């Protein structure tokens, strides 16, 4: 399942909802990305995320389908926020559930790596002087995404 929303989310509640009443799940992995006060050596005071409504949902759904095809997943959730966020707030949540931990771990890592290079979100950082600037693409994110290609 995917959700694109402005509102903050509750990690514990999302894990609870996904596992509640089920006795077939052996492993649950969650990843949460948070707004950090530093990026590339610069102090950050806040973050704003723009996205492409419509295309965002399409891309996230494709990424989820890919993960479900590659790994044995019983459930899968991606939540991504947009709009203004304060330091320490969660930006993105990925949860995977599987009978086996290897699948849950790899699928969650894959979802994050692909989302980072495919889902149409753009970060704008604010600094202490009140300046805003668009975050640049990272070479390390491209590399991280690429390693899942060589598998297929």
């Amino acid at each position, binding site marked *: 399942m995917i959700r694109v929303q402005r509102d903050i989310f509750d990690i514990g509640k999302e894990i609870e909802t996904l596992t509640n009443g089920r006795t077939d799940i052996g492993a649950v992995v969650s990843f949460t*990305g948070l707004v950090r006060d530093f990026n590339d050596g610069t102090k950050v005071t806040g973050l704003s*995320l*723009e*996205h*492409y409504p*419509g*295309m965002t949902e*399409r891309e996230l759904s494709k990424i989820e389908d890919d993960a479900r095809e590659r790994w044995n997943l019983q459930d899968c959730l991606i939540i*991504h926020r947009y709009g203004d966020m304060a330091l320490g707030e969660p*930006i*993105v949540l990925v949860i995977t559930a599987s009978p086996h931990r290897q699948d849950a771990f790899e699928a969650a890592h894959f979802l*994050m790596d692909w*989302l*980072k*290079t*495919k*889902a*149409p*979100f*753009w*970060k*704008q950082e604010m600094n202490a002087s009140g300046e805003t600037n*668009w*975050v*640049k*693409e*990272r070479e390390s994110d491209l590399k991280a995404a690429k390693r899942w290609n060589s598998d297929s």
Partner: protein
Amino acid sequence: MKILYFAWLKTKLQMTEETIPWSEECPDTDSLVRWMKTRGPTFAEVFSDLEVVRVAVNQEYITGNTALKNEDEVAFFPPVTGG
């Protein structure tokens, strides 16, 4: 055709969205980009380095030149930085 701009392209062009009627001069994405560059210095600058501009047609990434119809939605944006 509906044209959308995101992130720094939007900031530089001071425009989020516009509608351009389809014409025989711009039957595909390559010719649309060429035409964009002729619209003035800001457009020329934004479209000068196509390495940092991604193109989506009808909310799908395109790879290579793609034919366009009047009802298409074309989006221009930088490499994504979410997550």
